[in-house]
């Protein structure tokens, strides 16, 4: 339950060996690469290899060709693919592109004709009933004709105009009247303006529409049919083309993607003349296997150093977890990894999460099902999620045994306990409500105390005395919190007079003062000088008092609210039992034949709903009530370089 030890590795070699070095780093599977230098002052003449990726354009081109041919890209063995350079791949793309473009163009042309003809059909639909030929109408020498649509509202105004025109309506929809107007050519412009002012929208009948409407329909439909047939033929040709070239496209794409991604790794490599400089981290345990990769190469030198040897890069964090705690690493990663050299809380989370889940969702039968489900999920879907489920399932079974609850049947285990002579078990939840709630708060107090102790440990480890000694989660906070708890519990629950004057002064007032003055006290310890603010900014005594008064108020409030927050643990114990009671009541009320069904559906419902709520509530307790006391989560994730196939192209 610690953090994996790392080593800083620097690799120096010849430029000609760049690709092979990078490939070996990828092969190792444990090399976390860092930029060769971060700021110009550290570059020492080095330059980062930020060259334009020559495989970028062909990669996009090949992906586009595959998409237009409907080829689903997948990882393929490319050992017999002869293409090497970016130019080779570009030529390969051009070779495919030419026939593909020709076929696509022909298909597009057919589709365009279909679209135009269909558009004309829609327009002609509004002119049904026109028995005259379009050519004859439009070729009138003295009469101008316009086809189009007029808003319905404008139509009723037409009779109030005294110009010489007439409008022939053909079709009317919700908003427009479709038709044509005729007027003498001499006043065409005036009438056009008039209709324009009434928002008449002209429709240009395309040249390919000839004859009367019926004839035009027939011709258009025939043309649509012909072009649909042609488009289908082109589709078939494209499909044949795809079948013919699919294998070589798959091989070329996989190789191209590999080369492209490998080239991308260069951006963190430093170069000086013909030398390359690569920097990164490996886990210490992989030292030997990594060393072995480069032992044959004489011109490449690999130097191993302690992880803190280079101040410009922070070592990444790899959690080192045991078999039991490993699945809970997911929760820690969700919050944020610890700093390298920090505290790995996964073990603590594993124990508390399992414990709280068991308490809140205690049922032998349901816990067993969660366990089985965890095994299934772990095998088929997510090992981490499955692992968590199986562990909390076991915890649920243990607490279910203590509660005597099996699928909501609360009396099923009574005879077992009677035969064993244990009279204080099982715990009858509704008869021991106060005990359960007080125990929940006690668990909360214990967890908060442990969190504070962890914080003190981390504080001392990092030599942060404000955090370890004087902070609200340091020694002062621990003394203050435990003293108040002891005082309250002793006075209110046990009737013991604990709150004597020395107790109050030494264990409550002085620690509170320490928390209040944590910044100056820590400054005295750290810098041997008295300061009111840590960063050396000027702060008046008045400001200091006001600021710390409110902070102190917030700390006290957080002690109370965090402690009370654990009441939900008891609340969910009651809620779970209550929901199962409802299921049992429904079952009793149902017909005998329906009772098993009610029990199964009721249990399934409670398991899904209650299980999810409890899981979420515990995450909340972990993150807010526990992690907030000692955990920062500012660590850098370990991301070993590698080239993984993906059909996606950015």
């Amino acid at each position: 339950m610690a953090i994996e030890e790392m080593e800083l590795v620097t690799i120096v070699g010849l430029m000609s060996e760049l690709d092979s070095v990078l490939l070996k780093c990828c092969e190792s599977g444990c090399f976390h690469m860092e930029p060769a230098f971060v700021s110009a002052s550290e570059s020492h003449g080095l330059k980062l290899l930020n060259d334009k990726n020559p495989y970028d354009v062909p990669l996009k081109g090949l992906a586009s060709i595959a998409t237009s041919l409907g080829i689903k890209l997948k990882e393929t063995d490319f050992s017999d693919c002869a293409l090497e350079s970016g130019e080779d791949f570009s030529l390969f793309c051009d070779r495919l592109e030419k026939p593909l473009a020709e076929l696509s163009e022909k298909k597009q042309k057919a589709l365009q004709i279909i679209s135009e003809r269909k558009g004309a059909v829609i327009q002609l639909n509004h002119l049904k009933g026109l028995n005259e030929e379009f050519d004859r109408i439009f070729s009138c020498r003295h009469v101008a004709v316009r086809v189009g649509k007029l808003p319905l509202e404008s139509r009723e105004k037409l009779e109030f105009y005294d110009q010489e025109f007439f409008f022939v309506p053909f079709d009317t929809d919700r908003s427009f009247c479709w038709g044509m107007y005729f007027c003498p050519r001499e006043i065409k412009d005036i009438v056009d303006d008039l209709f324009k002012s009434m928002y008449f929208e002209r429709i240009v009948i395309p040249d390919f529409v000839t004859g009367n409407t019926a004839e035009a329909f027939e011709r258009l439909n025939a043309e649509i049919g012909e072009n649909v047939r042609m488009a289908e033929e082109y589709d078939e040709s494209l499909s044949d083309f795809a079948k013919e070239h699919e294998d070589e496209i798959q091989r070329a794409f996989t190789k191209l993607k590999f080369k492209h991604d490998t080239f991308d790794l260069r951006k963190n490599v430093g170069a000086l003349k013909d030398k390359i400089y690569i920097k990164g981290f490996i886990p210490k345990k992989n030292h030997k296997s990594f060393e072995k990769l480069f032992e044959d190469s004489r011109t490449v030198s690999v130097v191993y150093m302690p992880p803190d040897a280079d101040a410009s890069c922070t070592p990444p964090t790899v959690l080192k977890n045991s078999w039991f705690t490993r699945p809970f690493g997911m929760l820690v990663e969700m919050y944020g990894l610890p700093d390298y050299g920090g505290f790995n809380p996964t073990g603590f989370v594993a124990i508390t999460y399992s414990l709280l889940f068991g308490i809140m969702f205690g049922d032998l039968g349901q816990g067993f099902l969660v366990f089985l489900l965890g095994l299934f999920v772990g095998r088929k879907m997510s090992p981490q999620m499955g692992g968590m489920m199986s562990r909390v399932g076991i915890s649920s079974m243990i607490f279910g045994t203590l509660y005597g609850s099996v699928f909501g049947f609360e009396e099923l285990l009574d005879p077992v306990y009677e035969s064993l002579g244990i009279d204080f078990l099982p715990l009858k939840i509704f008869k021991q409500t106060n005990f359960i709630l007080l125990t929940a708060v006690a668990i909360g107090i214990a967890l908060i105390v442990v969190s504070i102790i962890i914080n003190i440990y981390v504080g001392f480890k990092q030599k942060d005395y404000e955090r370890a000694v004087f902070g609200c989660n340091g020694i002062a906070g621990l003394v203050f919190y435990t003293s108040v708890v002891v005082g309250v519990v002793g006075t209110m629950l046990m009737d013991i007079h604990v709150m004597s004057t020395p107790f109050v002064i030494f264990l409550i007032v002085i620690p509170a003062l320490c928390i209040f003055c944590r910044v100056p006290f820590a400054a005295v310890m750290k810098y041997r000088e008295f300061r009111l603010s840590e960063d050396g900014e000027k702060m008046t005594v008045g400001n200091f008092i006001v600021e710390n008064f409110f902070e102190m108020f917030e700390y006290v409030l957080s002690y109370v609210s965090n402690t009370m927050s654990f009441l939900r643990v008891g609340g969910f114990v009651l809620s779970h039992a209550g929901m199962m009671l409802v299921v049992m009541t429904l079952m009793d009320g149902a017909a005998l034949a329906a009772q098993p069904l009610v029990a199964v559906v009721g249990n399934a419902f409670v398991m899904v709903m209650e299980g999810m709520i409890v899981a979420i509530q515990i995450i909340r307790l972990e993150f807010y009530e526990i992690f907030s006391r000692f955990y920062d989560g500012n660590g850098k994730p370990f991301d070993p370089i590698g080239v993984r196939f993906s059909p996606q192209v950015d």
Partner: protein
Amino acid sequence: MLESCSTNATVTKIRAIHGTMLKCGNYHEMVSMRSVPEVAEYLRRSPRFREVLGDVDPNTVHRGFLESLLNKANFDTYVRLCSFQGLDKVPFYNFIIQKRECEQLLNLVNALNSGLDRKFIEELPGYVIRHSELDLLSLSEASDFDDILLKLRGTPYYRVMRSVGRSEDGKADYTDCELKLRTFYYKRLIGYIEKDLRASDERELKKLIFSEVDTINIINAYRLKAFFGYTPEQIRKSQLPFTKTGKSRMNLLYESDTPREMISRLEKTVYGRGFQGEYEHIETKVNSYTYQLMKHTVSVSTSAPVAIYAFMKLCDIEVNNIVHIIEGVRYDVDPAMLEGKLIIC
């Protein structure tokens, strides 16, 4: 109590439609568009105008037609709201139709005065023709002001129009006509409110109407002072005879020596909040108050007549904003400047 409950459904319906109105974010998006078809397409996809613009081709639609469709959408909404619980039987609820009638009569006088007599019928909205008690199509055939009076005989507008001042060539004085028609509209509206509605509704509505009139008077007064150099007495004569803020305060504005002084005096009233010495968009700033008042009223009022009045005013403001945007986009106006002319948020 029952009377109040009986119109609660209308109030709820108004709030539901109010929820679909364009928001600040929508206006921000529209002002940054590059062409009118883009704006038309955007409006066509909005829940607010989806129905009325459904059959329209955004690429070919004329700006004027688009504007008339938006106005029609608002009018249709108004008709639906009034008929929803049979409110249209109460004369007050005809206020939008009466407003449109007055606007059309003014358009007619303007068209005749400027010799563009066909312009009236071109711009005459079809929905007004159908709902108006006036025969607007027949009015469109009027060739002079006497003709208008002849066709208006027997309607409530006859007496008003007859009293309008005339010039020597027989043309009607447009400014006088506008003042008289507006005064008549508001007087008739207040008459209906006092006669048909409850005292609480009357109080709320009068507050809205008088505020609206105040903004009209303020904008008018500013224009007359800044651009025509009218004296306080001339301004007073051209104002609508209602006020919420009080005659003395309005007189104080009219009596300002310069337009700048008028703005600084206005800043001390509710209508001039947020002016901060800005003189460019006085209409926008003053109308923003009306917008806020109407928006607040729609949100909190439980009275159907009050909510419907405020809501229709908001609809008008919304269409005006869209028209500004369409024109701005059409003539490539800077988005920031365009946004400054919108009455939003």
